[in-house]
């Protein structure tokens, strides 16, 4: 695993466009430490490229904004969290979700895979589900965004199948001995994701408040949803 600390430049507090810097992890793809001048030059280079392509009628500001919006805001674990919250408050939706996840998820306006189906598996007091892709890193990204690095690790991909309880314990999840652990292997055709158990003491929460409780790891099945 390549790890390299990114040297963070001091940003002016008011520069909200750059707020990502503060929570972005050390990332092997961002190791080059650019000076402000270099960023300015790159920024101008992209602007010139955009202007040239706009002139040729190949891109437009509108279309570019839509792309950014889609990838940055609409394709993330928040979509999955909304699906889970809806299933918790609407039994009819939950039934449709478990029967045909792709169609039910499309009701909320999420989708984007081609022929691949999404399948939702429900955690209960008797069954704990967890998802993997043993061959590569198939992932229901329209609802969960881009997969975490560990999901692609050979270690996770093999160990979760051989010894799921130990791997779950490493994530702090320890289903009781009476709970059956099921491991679902995703493929190019079928993408699984987990409908976690609704935590206790959430009867008073609204659907959007519930959605905020649902983390990505709970939908992969390596974690539970913690109560408020």
């Amino acid at each position: 695993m390549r790890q390299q600390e990114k040297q963070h430049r001091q940003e002016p507090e008011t520069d909200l466009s750059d707020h990502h810097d503060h929570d972005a992890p050390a990332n092997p793809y961002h190791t080059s430490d650019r000076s402000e001048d270099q960023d300015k030059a790159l920024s101008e280079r992209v602007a010139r490229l955009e202007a040239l392509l706009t002139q040729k009628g190949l891109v437009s500001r509108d279309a570019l904004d839509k792309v950014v919006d889609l990838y940055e805001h609409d394709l993330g674990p928040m979509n999955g969290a909304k699906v889970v919250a809806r299933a918790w408050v609407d039994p009819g939706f939950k039934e449709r979700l478990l029967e045909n996840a792709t169609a039910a998820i499309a009701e909320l306006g999420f989708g984007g895979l081609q022929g691949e189906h999404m399948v939702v598996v429900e955690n209960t007091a008797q069954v704990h589900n967890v998802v993997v892709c043993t061959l590569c890193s198939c992932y229901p990204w329209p609802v969960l965004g881009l997969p975490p690095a560990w999901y692609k690790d050979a270690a996770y991909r093999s160990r979760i199948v051989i010894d799921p309880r130990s791997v779950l314990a490493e994530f702090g999840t320890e289903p009781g001995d009476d709970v059956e652990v099921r491991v679902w292997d995703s493929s190019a055709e079928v993408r699984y994701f987990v409908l976690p158990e609704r935590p206790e003491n959430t009867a008073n929460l609204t659907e959007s408040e519930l959605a905020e409780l649902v983390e990505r790891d709970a939908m992969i099945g390596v974690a539970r949803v913690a109560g408020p």
Partner: protein
Amino acid sequence: MNRQRTARTEVAEMEGGAALPRKSGEMVFHENWERQAFAIAVNLAERGVFAWSEFQQQLIESVAEAEREDALNPSRGYYESWLVALERLLEKKKLLSTAAVE
């Protein structure tokens, strides 16, 4: 629409050196120009100016080139390699001369 869907699947599922920088499923951009360069490439693929696979291949080469001397310390960041790949592909397609943007 179909082409858009194809592009989306392909963009989201890039592997190895070409894989998108991300955190908890969200994309990570450090500067606005990175966001813009990302959007230009995706938009051009959605419009069929090039196939995503063509861009991906160029990106893989560009990232590998940056890591050739020292994989732990690439000579340029991910989105710089992205921009280089984009310029080269557009150059190949005779859609601009790199000289015009540099």
